[in-house]
């Protein structure tokens, strides 16, 4: 039986190479993709490097995916230029590429299903400023200083603050690799050296939970925490008031859109340049709304 | 005319030890100067000063009257001082040729090695020196004796003025000692000289011109070998006279058998080795280098795999897969290679002495009784005259002979019924040797059974109740105390059943054509 390899089977095969696979966010994307695949009767595989700095690893995965001659490829680039030669190879093999999560700097992908991370971070900044009364020190614990999602969520936040909240003082950005323990330790150090810190922003799930842990462990009251993404721990933190609110993307939706687009591409249908999968601000007040519940993952 | 080498007022101290104190020494042109002294007297330290490994606290060295200042081993060699250290300095992963010519490899363009030239050169050297070594063999696979030969070859490959040999024969048997002496005689010329350190008194007469005795780091006296008896030398060394030629004690043939080995074979060497060890007996094992004595011992205690054979203890077959099985059955094995298989060099004396018995003697519900262990170690230091500032001294800081005593002590601490001692007196001074012989006799007297493997035939002959002789992995004979003469042992030790049909026939090997070394032989070794 040859079903493991290549698109020679009956059902179309979509190979998805993401930026990661172990984290909740990616598991949610995968889940969405699988649901949609089931519906549409396509077979998918979902893979990603262990950490989001493993650019070479991802390129290897992409070339291995191409070796299986899939009918379409879903791709979230860690570094869009690094994959350019492979994307060209895909094009020459007539394999449509659907970008997701992070845009690919190239006109080869037929469409991109993604969150506008800068806009999302700006939204987080806006809520932060509001919550602290537009003044005071704000610290940022960011998951990565080189990846696009990291820098966009940092820059989107910083730029909004600089333009709209001149009385907010931003402390030097600290990076915690999205690791909860490390982010918690960093948070405690921040609080230690800036006892008057008014708010702390965590730029993805691991960072946000780390910030929550750090604030809790420091025993300090009254610090406004704004997070990113969802997951059980963040939902709990919002419910019990340690976290004021967070931005969530729509990872399940992203996975669904990705597979939908892939099927359309295989069928030769036209696709829009971008599919905005959207983001939402959620806090205690709207967390139980159906619209929000639909995009949160536990 | 000044002497070849002059040493004046040299002192060297280590924490807690004054190894050398106002030492002086002269080596004349064209002579072999023997340097003797008890274990820890400072012989090796003096040589390390000469070769630039240590720097002296005080004193002068002169070569041909010129002040000699060596900055390190390389400098020493370039100045013409070549040394064979007591502890080997070999690279086990390199071949014989590579070891001998390390740092002086034939090269093209200064960088690319010529393996062929190297091996050729080494082969020539080995042939000239008549050393039975394969230039391409890995040194790590060689026995101690052959490694010693590599050291000798290396030292002689330099254009040395002064050749220093620190116990070069400790691992050699008489035949090999002979070869070495031949080498030394050929090395000696009017412009060269040799410092020869040894604890084997018998060879001093054969090789040295003069003998310098040192004690406790101080110069004692220098004697002309011609006009001196060894007795005098020994009494200067140890400060008393020793009993002359002794005989094995309590030889009886009505002793019950304790250990019975039958048909023991290993993949590489041993063929159908069978013998019995009786209660309270000292059973000597003689043979030439590589005859397989060490391998027998290792196979018995489970350090190496057996391919066939049974071991019975007091008539009951026992399974020994690992030295710990042997230890549980109260069979102990003291290895011939103290550095590799005997000592924890980085640990202190007390831990080394106690190691065999931590589980049963020096612990209570899992906790080590360090106090008790220290006490016992101190007793051992006392009993064996181990020269060390305290039992807390690190083993590697002890002199070679004292390290050997520590290894012996380790097995005395454990109450074993069967003790297999492989070259137990290697590197031990004459005085202490006597003490160890007394100790072995004492142990045997208490009913312990002892296997004594030794390359020093006189030692075997004076200690062993019976002598097992091995050749080429087989037992070629077992001699009673009365039969065991130098000639008889050597005859059996030099039989070559593998290539000499007559020898095979003499050993009763059926179908021995010399071409089939692994034909199972049924009745080698009379019992």
């Amino acid at each position: 039986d040859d079903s493991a390899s290549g698109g020679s089977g009956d059902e179309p095969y979509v190979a998805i190479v993401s930026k990661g696979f172990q984290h909740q966010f990616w598991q949610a994307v995968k889940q969405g993709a699988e649901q949609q695949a089931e519906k549409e009767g396509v077979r998918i595989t979902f893979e990603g490097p262990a950490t989001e700095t493993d650019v070479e690893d991802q390129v290897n995965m992409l070339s291995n995916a191409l070796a299986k001659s899939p009918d379409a490829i879903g791709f979230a680039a860690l570094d869009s230029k690094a994959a350019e030669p492979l994307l060209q190879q895909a094009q020459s093999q007539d394999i449509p590429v659907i970008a997701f999560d992070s845009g690919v700097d190239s006109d080869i992908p037929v469409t991109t299903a993604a969150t506008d991370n800068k806009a999302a971070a700006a939204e987080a900044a806006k809520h932060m400023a509001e919550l602290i009364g537009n003044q005071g020190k704000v610290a940022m614990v960011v998951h990565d200083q080189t990846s696009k999602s990291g820098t966009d969520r940092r820059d989107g936040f910083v730029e909004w603050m600089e333009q709209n909240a001149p009385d907010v003082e931003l402390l030097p950005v600290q990076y915690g690799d999205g690791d909860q323990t490390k982010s918690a330790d960093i948070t405690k150090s921040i609080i230690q050296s800036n006892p008057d810190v008014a708010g702390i922003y965590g730029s993805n799930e691991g960072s946000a939970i780390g910030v929550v842990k750090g604030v809790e462990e420091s025993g300090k009251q009254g610090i406004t925490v704004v997070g990113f993404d969802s997951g059980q721990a963040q939902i709990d933190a919002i419910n019990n008031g340690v976290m004021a609110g967070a931005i969530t993307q729509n990872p399940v939706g992203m996975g669904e859109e990705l597979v939908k687009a892939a099927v359309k591409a295989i069928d030769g249908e036209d696709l829009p340049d971008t599919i905005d999968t959207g983001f939402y601000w959620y806090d205690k007040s709207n967390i139980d709304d159906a619209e929000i519940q639909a995009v949160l993952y536990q | 005319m000044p002497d070849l080498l002059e040493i004046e007022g040299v002192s060297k101290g280590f924490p807690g030890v004054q190894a050398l104190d106002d030492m002086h020494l002269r080596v004349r042109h064209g002579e072999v100067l023997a340097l003797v002294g008890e274990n820890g007297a400072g012989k090796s330290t003096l040589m390390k000063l000469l070769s630039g490994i240590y720097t002296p606290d005080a004193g002068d060295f002169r070569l041909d009257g010129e002040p000699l200042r060596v900055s390190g081993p390389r400098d020493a060699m370039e100045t013409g001082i070549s040394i064979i250290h007591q502890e080997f300095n070999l690279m086990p992963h390199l071949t014989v040729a590579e070891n001998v010519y390390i740092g002086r490899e034939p090269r093209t363009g200064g960088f690319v090695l010529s393996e062929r030239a190297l091996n050729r050169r080494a082969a020539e050297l080995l042939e000239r020196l008549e050393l039975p070594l394969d230039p391409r063999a890995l040194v790590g696979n060689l026995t101690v004796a052959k490694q010693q030969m590599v050291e000798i070859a290396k030292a002689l490959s330099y254009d040395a003025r002064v050749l220093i040999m620190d116990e070069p024969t400790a691992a050699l048997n008489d035949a090999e000692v002979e070869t070495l002496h031949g080498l030394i005689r050929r090395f000696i010329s009017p412009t060269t000289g040799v410092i020869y350190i040894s604890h084997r008194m018998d060879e001093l007469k054969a090789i040295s011109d003069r003998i310098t005795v040192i004690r406790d780091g101080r110069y004692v006296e220098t004697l002309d070998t011609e006009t001196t008896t060894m007795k005098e030398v020994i009494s200067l060394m140890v400060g008393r006279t020793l009993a002359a030629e002794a005989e094995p004690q309590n030889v009886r043939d009505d002793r019950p058998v304790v250990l019975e080995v039958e048909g023991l074979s290993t993949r590489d060497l041993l063929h159908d080795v069978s013998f019995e060890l009786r209660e309270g007996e000292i059973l000597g094992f003689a043979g030439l280098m590589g005859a397989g004595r060490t391998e027998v011992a290792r196979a018995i205690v489970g350090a190496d795999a057996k391919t066939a054979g049974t071991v019975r203890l007091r008539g009951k077959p026992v399974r020994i897969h690992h030295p710990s099985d042997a230890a549980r059955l109260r069979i102990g094995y003291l290895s011939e290679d103290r550095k590799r298989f005997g000592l924890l060099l980085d640990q202190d004396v007390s831990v080394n002495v106690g190691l065999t018995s931590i589980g049963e003697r020096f612990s209570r519900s899992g906790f080590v009784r360090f106090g008790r262990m220290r006490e016992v170690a101190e007793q051992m230091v006392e009993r064996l005259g181990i020269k060390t500032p305290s039992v807390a001294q690190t083993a590697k800081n002890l002199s070679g002979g004292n390290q050997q005593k520590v290894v012996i002590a380790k097995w005395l601490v454990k109450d074993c019924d069967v003790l297999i001692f492989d070259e137990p007196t290697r590197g031990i001074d004459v005085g202490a040797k006597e003490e160890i012989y007394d100790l072995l006799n004492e142990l045997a007297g208490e009913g312990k059974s002892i296997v004594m493997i030794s390359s020093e035939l006189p030692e075997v002959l004076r200690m062993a109740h019976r002598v097992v002789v091995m050749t080429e992995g087989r037992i070629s004979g077992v001699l009673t105390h009365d039969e065991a003469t130098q000639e008889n042992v050597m005859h059996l030790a030099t039989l070559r059943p593998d290539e000499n049909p007559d020898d095979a026939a003499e050993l009763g090997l059926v179908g021995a054509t010399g071409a089939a070394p692994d034909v199972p032989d049924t009745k080698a070794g009379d019992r």
Partner: protein
Amino acid sequence: MSTTTADDTRAPQAGGLGSRWKDRLQELLAFASLIVIFAFFSIASSSFFTYNNVTNILFSTVVIGTLALGTTFVIITGGIDLSIGTGMALCAVMSGVFITQWDVPIALGVLMTLLFGGLIGFVNGFNVAVLGIPPFIATLAMMLVAQGLALVISGSAPIYFTDDPGYVRISTGNLLGFDFPNAVLILLLATLVCAVLLNKTVLGRYTYSIGSNEEATALSGINVGKWKIIIYSFAGLFTGLAGVMISARLGSAQPATGMGYELQAIAAVVIGGTSLAGGKGTIVGTLVGALIISVINNGLQIMSIAQEWQNVILGLVILVAVYADQLRKRER
């Protein structure tokens, strides 16, 4: 014999301190580097030397410290254990399975997790001692296997201990009654236990012996294989403990974490003066090594040094600290 007396007069000179005491001194000296670093940060930043921050530092040392303790034993035998990081993640996941899915009481669940860690260690020990696989490879393989299994067993999702608030208190509660997290207490306790085991027991003695000369130890009648298995299993208990500590702190078992922790733990051990060649090392040294790393990390964060410089400085300080240590050793 005459030589004996000759020496006895000289004995007190060197035996005075005794090698044990020398070792202790050594530790104190490694400790000196820590003190200097600590003093530096105390002067450089007023927020550094406060009760709260010192507690923070200790708290942030717990996980790496726990891993480092166990692995000290393995390293002293001359081995290495690369599986402790992902093994810890797997143990955390198992703790989640035991406590939240099988509904085992917390105390029992913790015990089972420790034993599961011991099992990981046992397999490592078996592979090393019985199959003769080099420790680096055996534990590298286990590192990969544990990483995969943590994901498989957890379904690649964190397991939350939301319904077991008692579990979180293992780490963050204050059993002592004042503001001193249990986690730190447990680390100190574990350090004490390890120090006693390493210095006072047969296990410790054989750990040193094997590392010092494995063949000589075996020929002394000690079942080296058996003891290696025991030592790796024992070290595994600490992988389990670290799994409990990290998941208790986070209130969840994170299956994807752990990679890289092994390197930090080994670094702590080695900075603490334990030799990767085996035969040498101390528990206090390991704790000091772990503290050096976390003090530097914390201090640089407190001083708000730009993060890309933090690693540069951490690297340089480690270099200097170890170099100073070397110098002192040579001097004595």
